[in-house]
């Protein structure tokens, strides 16, 4: 009878251990399958393989997808560079930007409007001499000759320097960033290992403290 009881105890211990092992393996498998399901790239690869099998060759999209690092996670805005503060921007007001040469955007700028100096028109008659002064050459048609007043635009308009449109650069610069706001996977892994080690140490310590001293 004691033999049977011992056998039963051994069997139940074995069953308990096996159940624990099965539970652990099930946990690993569940985590693994969840990871695959959550990764869009892996899902897409499966879809591409099916598509290739149907087509009989590897598609261009699949070839490009193979080299992809994957889709970007949502909400990846943690590392954005912020705009300059209002205090800083007073030195360089919004809209004033140091960028591309004007020629690159608009071609060569038109020549600035050159206003000839105002020349006093000679009198029609030289009163002192009593002889008629030479009359200015008559122009044919509508106007001509140098403009007398500088604020009258020349016929046909145009002229002047066209300022380039303000260009707003909304972009992440390439700063020599050394630290990241989001921990890297290696950091996560190290943290997890650290916590696991701490937990194991605490458990071992508690268990040993509960046991009677040996010797």
């Amino acid at each position, binding site marked *: 009878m004691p033999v049977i009881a011992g056998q039963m105890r051994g069997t139940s211990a074995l069953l*308990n*251990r096996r159940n*624990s092992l099965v*539970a*652990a393996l*099930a*946990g*690993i498998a569940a*985590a*693994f399958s*969840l*990871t*695959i399901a959550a*990764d869009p790239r892996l899902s897409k690869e499966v879809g591409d393989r099916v598509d290739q099998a149907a*087509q009989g*060759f*590897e*598609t*261009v*999209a699949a*070839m*490009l997808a193979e*080299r*992809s*690092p*994957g*889709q*970007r*996670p949502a909400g*990846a*805005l943690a*590392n*954005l*560079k*912020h*705009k*300059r503060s209002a205090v800083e921007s007073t030195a360089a007001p919004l809209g004033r*930007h140091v*960028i*591309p*040469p004007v020629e*690159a*955007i608009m071609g060569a700028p038109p020549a600035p409007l050159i206003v000839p100096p105002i020349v006093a028109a000679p009198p029609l008659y030289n009163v002192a001499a009593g002889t008629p002064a030479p009359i200015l050459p008559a122009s044919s048609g509508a106007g001509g000759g140098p403009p007398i007043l500088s604020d009258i635009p020349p016929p046909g308009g145009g002229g002047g320097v066209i300022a380039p*449109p303000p*260009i*707003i*650069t*909304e*972009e*992440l*610069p*390439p*700063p020599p*960033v050394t630290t*990241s706001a989001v921990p*890297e*996977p290696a950091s996560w*892994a190290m943290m*997890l*290992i650290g916590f696991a080690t701490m937990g194991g140490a605490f458990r071992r310590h508690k268990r040993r403290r509960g046991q009677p001293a040996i010797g």
Partner: protein
Amino acid sequence: MKRLWISLGCGISALVAVGLQAGSGASTGVASAEAASTPKDSSKDVSSNGRIFLTNEQLRQALKSGTIDRPIKSLLAVERPLKFGDYKWDDAAVPDGPTWIRIDLKSQLISVFREGYEIGTAVIVYGGDNKETPAGRLHILAKARNHRSSVYDAEMPYTLRLTNDGVSIHASSVRWGAATHGCIGVPINFAERLFDATKVGDEVTIVPASTPQQAS
């Protein structure tokens, strides 16, 4: 004992998850000029110079599916997924011709084609959720080798301007989890090559991260 097994299982599964995430490109790789180019699939027609020449069937399918909007002749053979900061450039023996840039926001990749041959590819960073990078067919409006943004007080070397409101392709710190205010950031060594290979007026096609059907 049972609790120990379960905790051990959870710990291992967490490590597996982190490892998979890292393997799927979540690491900050140092830029490597030349990725391995050995073919792994015998169905690909890879010549000795590390190119995959497309068959007529592949080209027809790609045009039909909208993957590309113009005929291309070859792709660079890239054996493994590129990491952030990686790029590949090979324009040896590629004839002169029109240059076309294809940017795929979903796969976070840029491809540069000349005369239909792919000469460069790299991982990019692009606009964040509220600063979306515009999609569609654009042109290079201007080039600036040493550009400094006064708005963000930052250097933006090798800028290729695409829109009048400032969206550009330029050198950036390409790392996992980063996003921009709408520009497309590429590794600086790649940006330099791209700057030299393009000219004002070259076409740029930006494929959106999600189609309208997916977005709705």
